[in-house]
């Protein structure tokens, strides 16, 4: 079972609300869900849509072909009917004129008015769609109750009920009861085998909270803002400072100050904001202050495509800032990975006293997916903070074999003061002009990178060991690629396998070298125009790709897209 429904309309028409209710109803009926969001950089008008794919098996990506369209305006029908299957359906208001016989023009607005509010016409459409699909509407009211105040929730639920009366069931998609994702008590925690519905940014935010992050400062920037939104919603309960900074420079410097003072601290932005943060990144590197930065990519340079996706910042982020110092860059591959990698980022930042960057993108940030609930019991907070000091005065930058110096939190040990400096400094943190000290300190900082390399996670391997062609990818491309590899291999012809990197800097090379040796051909699949991973792999491992599948139109690659592009080159 694999269905794909598009909900579209103008900005301000309620596409997002309707879609999130639809997703939750599907989730609560036991379906696996994967949705993407395509929206414009505007508050009213234009065209926004959400594509909700659902089925009874795990989903990793979106799909292109549509089974149904819920159109809140005429434009939605015009723009997307070309992708609608021959037996698909369109639900829209009867005012929408269209000759296609797949269009079901229903009195959505009229019914909504009868319920008492023309604005609930989307809920009428939802009720109609659920009835058409044969999905029980039992969870609709509970979902509305979670997001609206009681009277509004009731009105919307009534609208959905009235909508369900407008159509006859055509599909019968209800899942057996034992597949249901939830008990009726929606306040109980999800149990084993049950699912959460979450997007990449929410997973990062929840990961930060789970890691004990106590300070988040950021300047709003699409598509990173929803990290700050989620954290702000938990600010009082979780006791985390969430401060909207006057600019990204302030955001990163505040976070560095908070981290120096002993709190786990984080900032988040997209490529443009990260550009402003670059000097701060170097500061964290030079001061050896732990810091986690979420860089949620969108197509650049500069303003670029504000609401769309790209993996164009890899080489920038791994080398941003003047000078040489250790950092780590992790590109989460899906929402589950985003959660656990965020926790890991905080632990590694503390252990090596370095900045760790989570390099996500709009596709991962805004896609919602059903996954199994995160395991909180395995989470450890590894702080690496010293409570006793041998050297008097304290040497913040003591030369050690690993390059990591014992870290004291300022104010915590009477008589011990902590001095950090953006100038080159000696072991005490004092400014130095000494050539010898400079050499020692550069070596000390870079030594941390060598130890960090021992902690790297090898890329995820897709496919079987018995392959002909090796595909290289990174970050969120994992989802569409996982399905594309299955599609390619199901043809019983050329056999494909893939390595999908999460740790991208330092780049782990063990598995890469091993697999590359066996490959007859190597292809890189990336959401950018220049093949930045391929270039990095060539630089680090001396391994060259034979050709690239690249996409840089701001729209995410679908499994079908990758499948077609790879097949063309066979």
């Amino acid at each position, binding site marked *: 079972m694999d269905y794909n429904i598009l909900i579209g309309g103008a900005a301000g028409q309620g596409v997002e609300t309707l879609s999130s209710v639809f997703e939750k109803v599907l989730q609560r009926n036991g379906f696996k869900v994967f949705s993407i969001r395509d929206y414009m950089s505007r508050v009213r008008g234009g065209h926004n849509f959400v594509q909700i794919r659902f089925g009874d098996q795990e989903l990793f990506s979106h799909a292109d072909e549509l089974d149904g369209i819920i159109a809140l305006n005429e434009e939605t029908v015009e723009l997307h009917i070309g992708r609608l299957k021959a037996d698909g359906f369109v639900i829209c208001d009867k005012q929408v004129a269209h000759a296609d016989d797949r269009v079901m023009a229903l009195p959505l607005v009229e019914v909504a008015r009868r319920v008492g509010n023309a604005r609930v016409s989307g809920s009428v459409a939802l009720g109609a769609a659920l009835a058409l699909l044969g999905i029980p509407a039992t969870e609709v009211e509970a979902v509305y109750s979670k997001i609206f105040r009681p009277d509004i929730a009731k009105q919307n639920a009534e609208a959905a009920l009235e909508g369900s009366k407008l159509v006859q069931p055509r599909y019968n998609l209800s899942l057996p009861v034992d597949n249901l994702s939830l008990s009726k008590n929606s306040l109980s925690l999800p149990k084993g085998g049950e699912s959460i519905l*979450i997007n990449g940014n929410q997973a990062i935010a929840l990961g930060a909270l789970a890691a004990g992050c106590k300070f988040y400062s950021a300047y709003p920037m699409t598509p990173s803002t929803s990290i700050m939104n989620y954290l702000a919603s938990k600010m009082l*309960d979780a006791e985390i*400072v969430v401060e909207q900074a006057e600019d990204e420079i302030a955001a990163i410097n505040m976070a560095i*100050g*908070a981290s120096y003072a002993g709190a786990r601290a984080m900032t988040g932005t997209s490529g443009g904001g990260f550009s402003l943060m670059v000097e701060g990144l170097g*500061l964290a590197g030079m001061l050896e202050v732990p810091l986690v930065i979420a860089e949620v990519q969108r197509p650049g340079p500069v303003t670029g495509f504000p609401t769309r996706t790209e993996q164009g910042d890899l080489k920038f982020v791994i080398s941003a800032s003047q000078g040489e110092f250790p950092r780590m860059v992790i590109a989460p591959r899906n929402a589950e990975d985003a959660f656990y990698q965020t926790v890991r980022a905080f632990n590694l930042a503390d252990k090596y006293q370095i900045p760790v960057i989570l390099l996500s993108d709009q596709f991962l940030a805004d896609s919602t997916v059903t996954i199994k609930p995160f395991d909180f019991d395995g989470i450890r907070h590894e702080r690496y903070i010293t409570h006793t000091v041998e050297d008097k005065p304290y040497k913040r930058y003591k030369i050690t074999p690993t390059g990591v110096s014992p870290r004291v939190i300022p104010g915590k040990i009477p008589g011990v003061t902590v001095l*950090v*400096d*953006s100038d080159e400094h000696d072991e005490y943190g004092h*400014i130095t002009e000494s050539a010898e000290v400079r050499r020692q300190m550069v070596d000390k900082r870079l030594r941390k990178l060598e130890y960090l390399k021992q902690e790297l996670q090898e890329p995820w391997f897709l496919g079987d060991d018995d392959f002909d062609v090796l595909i290289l990818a990174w970050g969120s491309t994992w989802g569409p690629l996982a399905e594309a590899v299955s599609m390619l291999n199901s043809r019983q012809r050329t056999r494909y396998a893939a390595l999908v990197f999460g740790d991208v800097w330092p780049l782990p090379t063990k598995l890469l070298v091993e697999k590359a040796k066996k490959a007859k051909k190597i292809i890189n699949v990336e959401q950018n125009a220049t093949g930045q991973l391929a270039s990095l792999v060539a630089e680090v491992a001396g391994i060259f790709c034979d050709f690239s599948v690249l996409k840089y139109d701001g729209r995410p690659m679908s499994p079908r897209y990758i499948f077609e592009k790879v097949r063309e080159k066979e």
Partner: protein
Amino acid sequence: MSNTNYVISETAWCPGCGNFNILEALKNALEILGKKPHEVLIVGGIGQAAKTPQYINTNGFCGLHGRALPAAVGAKMVNKDLTVIVHTGDGDSYGEGGNHFIHNIRRNVDITHFVHDNQIYGLTKGQASPTTDLGHVTEVQIAGNINPPLNPVLLAIALGAGFVARAFSGDKEHLTSIMVEAIKHKGYSLVDILQPCVSFNKVNTFQWYSKRVYKLDESYDPTDKLKAMEKAMEWGDRIPIGIIYREEKPTYCDKIEFLREGPPLIDRPVDIQKIKGYLNDFI
């Protein structure tokens, strides 16, 4: 005994620099307040004044040019037990860091901001700063500075700062007393400290300031905002020093209950079971 003295063989400051007096006054102020070195955090940006954390035995953070304030407020928000003091210059505070100056007055985090205002760029050898007087000739402002100077005292009052003062490095005793009051003030406090640059400002010299500054006496009411703004605009033949404006108002931490009450944020354990409960948001 605060023992804030560091054994430093030499500073990077020029002989006769106003920074020496400011550093002495700071040490005296901390001693008067009974602060122990580990209880104090001095934050600097970049510049000659910003090197202050290097020459005193307290916690020290020498960050980026213009970015001392964000780092200072970040530290204070998570550890309210630290006495956080920013020491940096006019270029750092009002030029490169102008945006942070504006918005941290609005935030009103309980920190103290001592600006060593010598009306010139010292470390980069003598270009105009945001407070350089009109007509001042430098190697860059070759025909004299044509951009009118920023008035930090007036600006701070206008933005709603709760403690705004001006002091002179040449009067150490008076400066010390102002510093004590500024550190004691709950919320953001600004002290614009007039200071000669013996190497690069040949206009606003020690004598130039000495001739002009006068201390505000008890007849002056620093709680009258409009009067304070008038006083802040006095610049020229006579320059007032002292507390120009003061007003108690809730600080950033006062306005957030979990920061106001209880131990500093860094001392609180993470309730992982509570965080786990947030999974409910996603079902």
